């Protein structure tokens, strides 16, 4: 409870543990305060990458770093234009996004199902967790020759490798999310006679979904990471192939441009997953670390 009084003046007869606070701008002008905060957040979110880019341009133009080995922004712009006009850039973006999305969907779907089942069943968890944990630690790119032998050198091996990598991230986060749903909620639902489907639909799913989506966001960026690595190794198309080709042919501008595009795609993919999460979980608190709670 707030009380208006001059600052520094003691309240007579009040307990010293009572905290008295004057209303601040958040209370007096909430919309204006929110607007200013959002403007600052937006400035920082855009400004910091822009500042880093500006610093890079400064470094190359002032020759703090060798522009023959670190292409200038002008050169990268020319490379982008050339790649776009030749059709290579759009083809690479399309094929890479398609691979990442298909691999992610399969991996996330499988990971969510297995994670839920293992989170809900102690017996299943005991049976599968040791084996899956061991497989999780195997570097997936090391399995690429195995997948190439099994699935051939086409797109299937790439989808499978991405899916397998994503699977483990989503499996772990889903299993942990289901297990972390408070026992009290389950007991309360049981008390009210909830069946299995109702338990899932009204207790476990809404309770676990926020943490599942954290895992999905991480898996989204991991899918891009693995994709680029795979396209390096079995390159004939995609952004990873263009990066590797740029490196091999010493067309460093091409490599840098595609690295930036990969970073942007990774960010957009994570943002898309977060947006879907926000739409599906209106009850969940905003997970933006710098936003007001």
């Amino acid at each position, binding site marked *: 409870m707030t009380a208006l009084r001059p600052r520094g003046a003691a309240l007579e007869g009040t307990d010293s543990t009572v905290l008295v606070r004057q209303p601040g701008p958040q209370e007096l002008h909430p919309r204006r305060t929110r607007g200013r905060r959002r403007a600052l957040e937006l400035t920082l979110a855009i400004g910091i990458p822009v500042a880093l880019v500006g610093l890079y*341009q400064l470094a190359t133009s002032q020759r703090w770093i060798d522009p023959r080995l670190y292409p200038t922004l002008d050169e990268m712009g020319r490379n982008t234009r050339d790649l776009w006009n030749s059709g290579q850039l759009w083809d690479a973006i399309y094929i890479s996004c398609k691979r990442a999305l298909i691999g992610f969907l399969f991996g996330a779907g499988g990971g969510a199902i297995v994670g839920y089942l293992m989170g809900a069943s102690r017996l299943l968890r005991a049976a599968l967790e040791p084996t899956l944990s061991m497989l999780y630690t195997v570097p997936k790119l090391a399995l690429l020759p195995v997948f190439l032998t099994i699935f051939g050198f086409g797109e299937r091996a790439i989808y499978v490798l991405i899916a397998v990598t994503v699977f483990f991230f989503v499996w772990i986060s889903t299993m942990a999310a289901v297990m972390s749903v408070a026992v009290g909620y389950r007991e309360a639902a049981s008390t009210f006679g909830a069946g299995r489907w109702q338990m899932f639909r009204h207790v476990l799913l809404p309770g676990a979904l926020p943490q599942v989506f954290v895992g999905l966001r991480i898996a989204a960026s991991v899918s891009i990471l693995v994709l680029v690595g795979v396209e390096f190794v079995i390159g*004939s198309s995609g952004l990873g192939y263009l990066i590797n080709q740029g490196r091999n042919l010493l067309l460093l501008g091409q490599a840098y441009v595609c690295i930036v595009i990969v970073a942007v795609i990774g960010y957009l993919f994570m943002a898309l997953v977060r947006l879907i999460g926000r739409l599906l979980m209106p009850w969940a608190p905003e997970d933006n670390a710098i936003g007001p709670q």
Partner: protein
Amino acid sequence: MKADRLRLTRLGGVVAAAIAVVIGLAACSSSGTGGGGGGPSASPAVIVPVAGCGAAAHTDPTDRSNNRTIARCSSGAPAPQKLLQPHTVVIAGASKGEYSAPVLLGMAKGEFAKENLTVKFVQMPSSDATVQLASGKVDAALAAPYVSFTNGVASGLDLKLTLANYSPQYGGDATKPQSGLWVRRADFADPQKPDLAQLKGKRICNTLGNGTVSVYWMQKAVQAAGISLKDVTWSALQPADCVTALQQGAVSAAYLLDPFWTQIKNQTDKYALAAVQPNEPNGAILYGPNLLEKHRDVGEAFARAYIRTINTYLGPGYHQNATVVNDLAQEIGVEPSAITNGYELKFEWEWRSGILDDIQKTYLELGTQKAAVIPEDKLVDRSFYNQAVGYNGK
């Protein structure tokens, strides 16, 4: 609270101002041009005759015939000229193989030590070696004039090809099973007589795609059949994966290096050798600014030791020298039989004139080289080996 609002405003102002300053400085600054590399190499010292290296130590560089003579000196020549101060040379190579014998064997036999040189061999991909070479982090590279080399020189990097590596024993002869362009018979209308024109629209596998040196002689082979390498799709895979891809039918042809081609050499019913490297070197030693200018004497000492190793241990018949084979096998990390199972390589130090023009024209046709054909004197420096064998151009 008012204090909080003031702090937020100040922070926002400081951030915005900092960003504006950086952007402003960046916008106002002029873009650096890709300046030229270092100045021209220092003139070599006066060239004096070298004992053991007579007229046979030099051949006409324009001679690219199949039966040309390879330059040679006597065993042990050119004699070492120990540097006053010890020096370490770092040389990068994609892998350790028989082709790296002049370096690895030279290290093992102490030929570099006689020049007061310590040589460190580091493995890294050729494209990375080019960058490391240009920045001075490595001194030399055992590589080839890939398109990364020509693109690098075109962008102003101070790099030169100074020594050749080897020519194949049966260069230009596709009847002898060896490293080269192998094709799947099943992918051709007449499996017994694969027509390279039918590679149009199909996939070819090699380690670096269309930026490798081998494209120039592959282009000649497919152009003779009426197509171009622009008509094929490239798959860049590791050598072992190229073999697997060929066997699985994922690619119709593959450029297989030593010793990977030996995995299919006995399956002549399924695979055929369609084209091979001509009788001329494709691999080379590249020098960076450290050895071209800063420490030219070290570059000369390295060249001497390299040439002496070839003359002393790697002449014709070296596969019959058990000591050489065993030492080389130990350096590479293979069994001696892995070396003697294949053909001898014809090691040489002289670079043939005209190869780089052919290579660059192919790069330009394939769109991998961005600059026009660079004159050979901007890419090759023959002064190091001429100096080492005492050839003064007369």
